[in-house]
């Protein structure tokens, strides 16, 4: 998906440049706003694209004078914004088990691979059942006990599994309410969950098990026109702005500032969302400046970390990540997925900033110093000759 944003946001920047329109202004004129049909015909809703663009411009201090560098170091800046449809129609199921001592276990096949899903799901359970998120145990990745889930992928889990977990927790809550009525407590009584089980079973025994399954509405695109009135349950939206320094003697690009902004709906855990934005942007930074599998007759010739370089700590630029105020009405407590949102804008933002700095347009990823240096020298009329 970042492959597409790379192309259309580089293209967008080239058009603005050619027409002499400020690139942010050009985007504002054309941005897709809520209530308008997207290319598939689906009417945009809960998609804070304009807000993401505005926040980027604000954080970049876009209207202020910009230092263009001096000597062999040229400075430039650029932005890129993108969006993506969520994977649909896909199903998630969850089970919430309230033990007789009131402690809670969530069973889910969403896999925590560092994105913090266990924490986010525990917060949803905790919100519904009025306990602290830290007290909820999450059992993940066990097909013997947890219900079906389509997969932890495509930034789908917060929305899909989040909704299933919320439904499961609400189911448990209504069963607890029913249990309270069964043991003779008047409606609306504040009760201790432990006491309910004791009253019902005569000792600390039993469980309340809530289940939830979620599948959003979806309409398949028409095979001839690709049109659909409901092509995605939610839109992922993210943008990146960068300032770069280009060393015109070596072709090296250094990102001196990076700002990532996304629409996460109403975030379940803002800190985790912001950290994800940083992580996604660092990954895309690698695809933009460093990473490239080299093949010789189908054989990868750089199949090791010695030769295939991912960003290290020293490659990570000063980075700020930010969320706009938004709500996904159909999401769990207004939340939506954010895993990929900060990968969208990084590559075109850097290529646009390089163009802004030195007037050279690169159309292939990764942007290697050699490619840029060759282009710079060619533009100066003293191309680097290939050795025969």
């Amino acid at each position, binding site marked *: 998906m970042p492959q597409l944003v790379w192309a259309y946001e580089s293209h967008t920047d080239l058009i603005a440049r050619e027409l002499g329109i400020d690139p942010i202004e050009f985007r504002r004129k054309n941005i897709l706003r809520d209530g308008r049909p997207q290319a598939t015909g689906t009417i945009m809703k809960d998609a804070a694209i304009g807000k993401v663009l505005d926040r980027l411009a604000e954080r970049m201090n876009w209207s202020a004078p910009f230092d263009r560098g001096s000597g062999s170091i040229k400075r430039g800046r650029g932005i890129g914004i993108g969006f993506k449809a969520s994977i649909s129609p896909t199903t998630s199921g969850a089970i919430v088990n309230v033990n007789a001592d009131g402690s809670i276990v969530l069973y889910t096949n969403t896999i925590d691979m*560092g994105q913090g899903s*266990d924490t986010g799901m525990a917060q949803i359970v905790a919100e519904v059942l009025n306990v602290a998120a*830290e007290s909820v145990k999450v059992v993940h990745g066990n097909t013997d006990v947890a219900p079906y889930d*389509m997969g932890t992928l*495509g930034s789908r889990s917060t929305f899909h599994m989040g909704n299933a977990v919320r439904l499961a927790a609400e189911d448990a809550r209504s069963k607890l309410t029913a249990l309270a009525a069964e043991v003779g407590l008047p409606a609306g009584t504040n009760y201790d969950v432990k006491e309910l089980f004791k009253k019902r079973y005569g000792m600390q025994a039993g469980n309340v098990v809530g289940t939830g399954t979620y599948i959003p509405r979806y309409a398949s*695109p028409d095979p001839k026109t690709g049109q659909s009135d409901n092509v995605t349950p939610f839109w992922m939206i993210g943008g990146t702005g960068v300032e770069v320094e280009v060393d015109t003697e070596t072709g090296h690009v250094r990102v001196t500032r990076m700002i990532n902004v996304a629409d996460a709906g109403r975030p379940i855990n803002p800190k985790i969302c912001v950290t994800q934005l940083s992580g996604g942007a660092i990954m895309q930074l690698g695809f933009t400046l460093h990473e490239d599998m080299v093949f010789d*007759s189908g*054989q990868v010739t750089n199949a090791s970390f010695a030769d295939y370089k991912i960003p290290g700590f020293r490659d990570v630029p000063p980075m700020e990540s930010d969320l706009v105020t938004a709500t996904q009405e159909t999401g769990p407590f207004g939340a939506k997925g954010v895993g990929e949102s900060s990968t969208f804008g990084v590559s075109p933002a850097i290529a646009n900033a390089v163009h802004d700095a030195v007037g050279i347009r690169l159309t292939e990823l990764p942007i290697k110093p050699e490619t840029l240096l060759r282009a710079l020298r060619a533009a100066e009329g003293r191309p680097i000759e290939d050795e025969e």
Partner: protein
Amino acid sequence: MNQIGRSIPRLEARAKVTGRAEYVHNMRLPGMLHGKIFRSTVAHGRILGIDTSAARETEGVFAVVTGEDIRSVIPNPYFGPAFHDQPILALEKVHFVGEPVAVVLSHDPHIAEAAVQMIAADYEELPPVFDEVEAMTSKAIVHEVLKPAGTFADLKHLAGRKHTNVTLDYQLRRGDVEAGFAIADHVFEHIFRTGQVLHVPLESHASLAEPGHDSLTIHTSSQTPSFVRMEIARLLGWPENRVSVRVPFLGGGFGAKVYVKVEALAAALALIARRPVKIALTMEEQFYTIGKHATTFRIKSGVNKDGRITARACDVWWNGGAYADIGPRVAQKSGFTAAGPYDIEHVRIDSADLDASHAPFVHVDQEVSGRRQLAFEARQRIAAAAKAGRRATRLRRAATRLGV
């Protein structure tokens, strides 16, 4: 207390920083065998023979298993989320350099690894196709027949196809794109490309399969346990409740650990050996397992004098590699938004996922590198290159192919 909007630290953070979090790579079971993989050295070829005798005779080797041996436990050993196109170990043909061809099992991973070096395979080489644009019309066909899996609701429309590398083409038509260009004051067209990259989770793929009485438990580094269970049960012809899939924490996934990767291989080996078998890939082996699509994207826009975009046409080619994996979904889903987050009246999008001769999603080779460079530079540099002989001929050929 309100739990939503609380920036609490991750619940598993302490277990991770103190080294107590569980990962498949660290798991050991009594009697467990390690499987090491012998891989194809050609991009497209017919397997003439696999000589495993020296490996079998190596001291400490438990067994050597080839694609044909897999059929003893899984008669039809092809898997995949969109098409059932990927064999557990290569059968009859190999489709990319690095494709798994045979496995050595041993209690000692180092013995297994050393014995892999003693396996020799003979191939009759077939013409490969590496470039996604070339794959559209190439005479080199990666698969003779494509068999749709029918697993996912959004891919129900996938049809079986013959004599083509195109696994899915999505088209979008909104308004009248030619009319939109006609009313524009300016028309811009560019081509952009991305190379082949890797997801690079720092934890490589690992699966540990444990056979039980009429059952199988697979501990695996997967983002999709439900799919793994469904697919393994389908391959074995078992009900799902006889297969159990467990996933501890993952050391990153980024989409590299979705659907079936090494689970089917570990499962088949465990059933053949009747012992727990672990397949744990090295970092290098990730490069032969899954990557991110290389792409070519031609984009054309009409803009009026007020700076409003009147029309946009997009052609996207996704290089899916030797097995479709989930490429058809990527081509379709990305097709929805290929024109960008802009309000444009007239839009045309064509997005195609193509098979090619390298690891799933994988692409690019030196010779092709030259060609892809051409595609890029064709517009600006065709005149300048006219004097450069062979290069000019190649440039023109690429330009014709891309219609620029």
